[in-house]
């Protein structure tokens, strides 16, 4: 390995010279560092192995790119990764072709982004849902795109408490988490804080399914919470959480969806706490276009940048909810409500 490294350095140099000399095959001669160069900004997106139509982060990121193409006039290119073997070649191909920004989706690509960023220090990278500080050697040309889930959770909890406030008897709401880990607990902590703010006497239940896939586990947990009196169950457990929405439908109580708008799954879905990956991608592209992109740190997307938020309210929910929630949202953005909790005791 030690012997081979000088060889490869030579190869990279030759390559760089060749690329500089010939201007590449694409005819775009602009250097990787210039933002206000000729031609439209070029943005590459590399999916993880979930692929483009995953109804999840890849798809949302793609929608963000499409929006940037339409509104900001950038030129986008999507590279899919059917196998992890594609991560490094995909990222380095875009960097080599002088793309102005390369966006990678998901933690699976964290190691690949760290390597590509080290090899192409003049290319800007962004990685979704991974903190830049967690990457190896903390590269200066990478921006982590992370989210303040607690703010979406707070709004959801506030809405949940309001919805059941006028019902007789003790008021109980609950949460079903996939596993006890920071993003999950940020949602849950926010939800609990929001509910307490709307109704200080409300009782809170919380449990973890220890699973992200098996709907039966989440459903079982939700049913036991409902049996204990819960009237609104917040599912923070990915695919497993669909079991929560199912349990709520069965027992005629409310549920709150997560990450994407899950209102299409039935009227029992009071609302959904959204993580707007599309917005994060769009805003990051806009930063590059405006010349305000800075690597070496995280972009934290909260309500202020519309990076998190609530989905549509159920048709049979209280008509006053949107108005009240909008007010709370403004209070969070303006800092009247601050220091939202991010951990669950």
């Amino acid at each position: 390995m030690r012997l081979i490294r000088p060889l490869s350095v030579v190869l990279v140099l030759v390559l760089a010279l060749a690329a500089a000399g010939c201007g590449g095959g694409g005819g775009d001669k602009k250097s990787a560092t210039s933002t206000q160069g000729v031609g439209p900004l070029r943005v590459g997106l590399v999916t993880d192995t979930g692929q483009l139509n995953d109804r999840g982060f890849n798809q949302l990121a793609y929608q963000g790119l499409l929006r940037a193409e339409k509104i900001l006039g950038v030129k986008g290119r999507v590279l899919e990764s059917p196998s992890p073997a594609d991560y490094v070649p995909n990222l380095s191909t875009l960097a080599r072709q002088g793309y102005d920004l390369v966006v990678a989706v998901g933690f699976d690509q964290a190691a690949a982004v760290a390597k590509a960023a080290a090899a192409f220090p003049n290319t800007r990278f962004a990685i979704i849902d991974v903190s830049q500080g967690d990457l190896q050697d903390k590269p200066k040309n990478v921006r982590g795109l992370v989210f303040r889930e607690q703010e979406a959770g707070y709004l959801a909890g506030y809405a949940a408490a309001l919805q059941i406030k006028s019902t007789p008897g003790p008021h109980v709401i609950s949460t079903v988490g996939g596993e006890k880990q920071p993003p999950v607990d940020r949602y849950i902590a926010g939800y609990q804080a929001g509910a307490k703010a709307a109704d200080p006497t409300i009782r809170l239940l919380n449990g973890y399914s220890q699973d992200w896939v098996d709907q039966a586990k989440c459903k079982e947990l939700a049913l036991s919470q409902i049996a204990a009196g819960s009237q609104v169950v917040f599912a923070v457990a990915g695919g497993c959480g669909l079991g929560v929405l199912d349990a709520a439908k069965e027992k005629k109580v409310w549920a709150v969806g997560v990450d994407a708008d899950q209102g299409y799954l039935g009227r029992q879905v009071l609302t959904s706490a959204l993580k707007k990956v599309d917005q994060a991608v769009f805003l990051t592209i806009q930063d590059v276009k405006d010349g305000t992109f800075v690597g070496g740190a995280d972009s934290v997307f909260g309500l202020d940048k519309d990076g998190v938020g609530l989905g549509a309210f159920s048709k049979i929910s209280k008509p006053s909810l949107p108005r009240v929630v909008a007010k709370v949202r403004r209070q969070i953005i303006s800092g009247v409500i601050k220091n939202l909790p991010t951990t669950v005791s």
Partner: protein
Amino acid sequence: MIEPGGNEQPEAPPAKAQLALGLAQLQRAGGLVTPVITTLLAFAIGGVVVLAAGHDPLATYRAIFDGAGLNWFFPWVTGADRANAALNLQQTLIITTPLILTGLAVAFAFRCGMFNIGGQGQYMVGAIMSVWIGSSFAGMTGWLHILLTVVLAMLAGAAWAGIAGFLKATTGAHEVITTIMLNWIAYWGGSYLFGLGGPLQSDVRKFVPISSDVADGAKLPVFWGDPQLQGLHVGLFIAVAALVVFWVILSRTTLGYQVRAVGYNPEAARYGGISVARNYVVAMAISGTFAGLAGALDILGWQFRLSVGAVQVSQVGFIGIAVALLGRNTAVGTFFAALLFGALYTGTSTRSLDPSVFRPDLAGSLAQIIQGLVVLFVGADVLVLYVWNVRRKLRRGRVTPAPRPATGAGP
């Protein structure tokens, strides 16, 4: 290899015997001809699909060829194009390496008369073992660490396949069923091990379902390309060496003779004093060794870690079945078939195809169509042989080859 047109045949053997003789000759000639025809046919039909989608098939295939880096072999490709071709070819060969081995895993079992569908599971236990051993013992000497990891991964693959061989030998349980079941056990086993809270989940990246990284010392050296950007690792040579080992075992050892004898006719082999049961176990174990080695080379060569997602999307072992079928279970055939499938994979990746020429989501589907067609036609090589036969007969002027005498007609 191709027999010169049957000139030495006597003029009037019985029609049936002549047909059998001709077919045997054809089959030998077909060893080379049918895979080539099969492949060309698959590409031709793939071209029709491309055409139907409103694209130029030739331009598309050219783009796939270049995207796989195969234009590197042309001396007139120079400058930036050449550097780019080198990068693409490195990726093609990285994919080819495990395909050679999973192809051999299927081929070896085939030669013993068994259909090993379990290459994927055997590959996966090899990969899991490699992640485990490779990420442990951080202070160990590099080459020793690599050796230990590779050997244990091969043993893991051998044991995994050996289970199916053992069940067949002792209870007669069909290997197709048991290997498929073992695939799923490996799939869910891996998902459990690297899942959140799983025993092999990373200590550093606590909140994502991914393993620890392989120690730097245990990574295979890269001999072509940038070691930091997934250059080509020396595993390719190990895979090529495995091809030689495969050939030597089958053609030059008593063990290979026995394996082939069982493959041709287990009853005859038993009558000849060969233990059929023992050969089933041994052949499956050797198959699994190849697949386990493939897992080790991937992990130590470029992957360095496994995530739940990586375990679940992996198809290497399944493509190995197509590789073995197309390669007709020979060492040389397996090499070229693996290269074809590796090139097809890299060539149709979205980074290789210009989105203005070919929509990226269509490109990936095209690769799958061609792969599917190859497998389909390989299954239908008897048809190719038949057509070949009729054509030759027509050329010889015998338009009505078999007058079908009344002997076979009566009830």
